[in-house]
């Protein structure tokens, strides 16, 4: 072999190796990260998808919610990301602003069929950066037995704030904690339960443009006072309120100590299992006279990382998963598409009440400093609960702290 021949043969080998690599990518392998509560249903859908699309291989990786935001942020920034990730709605905005995910406007079908608040969550700069698939909102669970024991009618539960307080007081006189609020645990527990009361009354924590702290406006303070007074002034929330998060309230409800508390449909199964004697009822969150109720919309979306190796196949998978029936099958709570709500699995009187809350769901405010803003708000709520300050003084101080964060 001459020198030239050798070179030529080496080049040929090199070229064929390159071709091999290229075909390996084109063979359509995608990696999908989904949380553990979705695992069984995800496997089933992947099997169906691969039957219809044999040229695409889906590698499922199961994540856990604990520490998930940090893990996703790390992988998105590392440049070696999976092709499809399940994330909670509020996270999407930050990814979009930092160009960590790709726009998905071309993937969305039947825009009108989607919950509009969910689409708002994942929209930034007039583009869609995620496809919402799961939505949920809190309502109020009640112990029907306690209602009957206290002479109240569980079939016509309180609808306004005044009726809620009156019912809570009657239930408390009958020997239980009428209405349990939260004051401990992770910040989110208390934000999800108290912020809707501020919204219903026409207030907010920060202004819409994200420049001004408005948590000490008269509407917001009145709502905060109404909510915290359940513990401070009326004592209808348990003594341990400052230690309680959503899970603790569920335990107290199971232990027959609490008659009403704010929760989602995810609590129903464990209550039925641990204390089958309790007759559970669900009611929409009461609102001020003449105003609408409100809730924070929670849930999950799919995003495609900017660093994904195979974004096109990932989009094909999303189109499959987002078909109404598949989405209705996949979600742990409710689907983001209205048409999927007709599936038989959602035909349950208790679930129907939670579903009625969905149109009143609103996105959490979006701001790069939201973690610190919500912490300052939560500190303010705790100051009221421990009796250090009244609602006005405490929210004034919280507004001052939040304003400093907004100005930084």
């Amino acid at each position, binding site marked *: 072999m001459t020198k030239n021949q050798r070179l030529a043969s080496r080049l040929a080998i090199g070229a064929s190796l390159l071709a091999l690599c290229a075909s390996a990518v084109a063979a359509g392998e995608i990696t999908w990260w989904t949380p553990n509560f979705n695992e069984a249903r995800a496997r089933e859908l992947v099997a169906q998808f691969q039957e219809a699309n044999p040229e695409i291989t889906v590698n499922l990786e199961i994540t856990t919610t604990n520490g998930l935001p940090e893990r996703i942020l790390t992988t998105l920034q590392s440049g070696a990301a999976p092709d499809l990730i399940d994330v909670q709605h509020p996270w999407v905005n930050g990814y979009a602003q930092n160009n960590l995910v790709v726009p998905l406007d071309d993937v969305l079908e039947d825009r009108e069929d989607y919950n509009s608040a969910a689409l708002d969550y994942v929209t930034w700069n007039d583009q869609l950066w995620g496809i919402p698939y799961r939505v949920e909102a809190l309502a109020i669970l009640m112990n029907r037995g306690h209602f009957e024991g206290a002479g109240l009618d569980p079939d016509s539960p309180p609808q306004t704030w005044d009726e809620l307080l009156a019912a809570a007081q009657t239930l408390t006189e009958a020997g239980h904690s009428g209405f349990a609020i939260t*004051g*401990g645990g992770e910040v989110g527990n208390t934000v999800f339960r108290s912020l809707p009361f501020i919204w219903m009354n026409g207030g907010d924590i920060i202004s819409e443009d994200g420049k001004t702290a408005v948590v000490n406006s008269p509407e917001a303070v009145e709502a905060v006072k109404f909510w915290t007074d359940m513990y401070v002034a009326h004592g209808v929330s*348990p*003594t*341990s*309120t*400052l*230690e309680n998060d959503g899970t603790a309230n569920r335990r*107290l409800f199971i232990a027959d*100590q609490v008659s009403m508390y704010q929760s989602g449909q995810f609590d129903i199964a464990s209550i039925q299992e641990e204390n089958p004697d309790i007759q559970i009822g669900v009611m929409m969150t009461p609102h001020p006279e003449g105003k609408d109720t409100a809730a924070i919309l929670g849930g999950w979306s799919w995003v495609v990382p900017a660093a994904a190796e195979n974004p096109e196949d990932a989009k094909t998978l999303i189109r499959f998963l987002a078909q109404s029936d598949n989405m209705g099958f996949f979600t742990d709570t409710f689907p983001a598409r209205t048409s999927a709500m007709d599936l038989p699995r959602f035909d349950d009187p208790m679930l129907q009440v939670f579903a009625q809350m969905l149109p009143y769901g609103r996105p959490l405010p979006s701001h790069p*400093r939201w*973690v*610190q803003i919500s*912490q300052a708000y939560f*500190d303010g709520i*705790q*100051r009221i*609960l*421990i*009796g*250090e300050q009244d609602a006005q003084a405490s929210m004034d*101080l919280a507004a*001052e*702290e939040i304003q*400093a964060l907004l100005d*930084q």
Partner: protein
Amino acid sequence: MRRLPTGLVFALPALIVLLMLIAYPVAYTGVLSVTDPSGAYTGLKNYQDVLSSRLTPRAFVNTLWWVGGSIVFQVSLGTAAAILLNQEFPGRGVVRAVSVIPWVVPGIVAATTWAWMFHTEFGIINYMLAGPGLISEPVGWLTNPDTVMPAMIAINVWKLFPFVSIMVLAGLQSIPKDLYEAARVDGATFWDETRYITLPQVRPVLMAVTLLLVIWALNHVTTIYAITKGGPANLTLITPIQIFRLGFESFQFNQAAALSVMFFLVAMVIVALYIRFLASGGETAR
């Protein structure tokens, strides 16, 4: 040709590892504290932002209470326990072994268990107090502004006083028996012996242990974070937790670095003062 000293050659790998693991992060923290997230130099802005936060002075005062309260009780209880365990009595070995249990329990396990015990509604502490009628209604140990910090300190004391007692016990056993015998011949009581022989003899041990305790209390996160996360309303927020929250919950790494640098300097001053005024006074005891 001069060769590197053989000792240095052998120590070099370890020195390089130390340099990478200690010197680099320390220096990098300094750099982070004067830059913004994109790496641009910002001067002292991070320091100003941190100092203007209402939380910073509050956390610092809480830290002083936390460190002071922990140290006083850990040292006094630990020393007392050591002196007792140094006496001859049947079953001494078992008691000694049992007394170190709080120290060997993992911090997060201990904290979670105590959180349950202190719980207003389900806690065994309120249950035991309410049984014989010592309290008429449940006490919110972890939510009452007057009890939450003392409760945290109590847990920290429970956790670490066995460490003090083991160290002091080791010191006690190195005291020559003749000293006690001579004292007894002179008619000394137990209290005289403790006051004039035992304590002066273990003074160097106590000083070293106290220094360690101060450092551990200053950088403590586990117990408080696991139980109250610094709440309610920041009543138990100490500076290390404030740094942790800034960095790992709010992702404000630059501000967290600035606060770390300041806290490091303050801690250095506290430790230096301690060594200057307390630890060096005991020359005669050596």
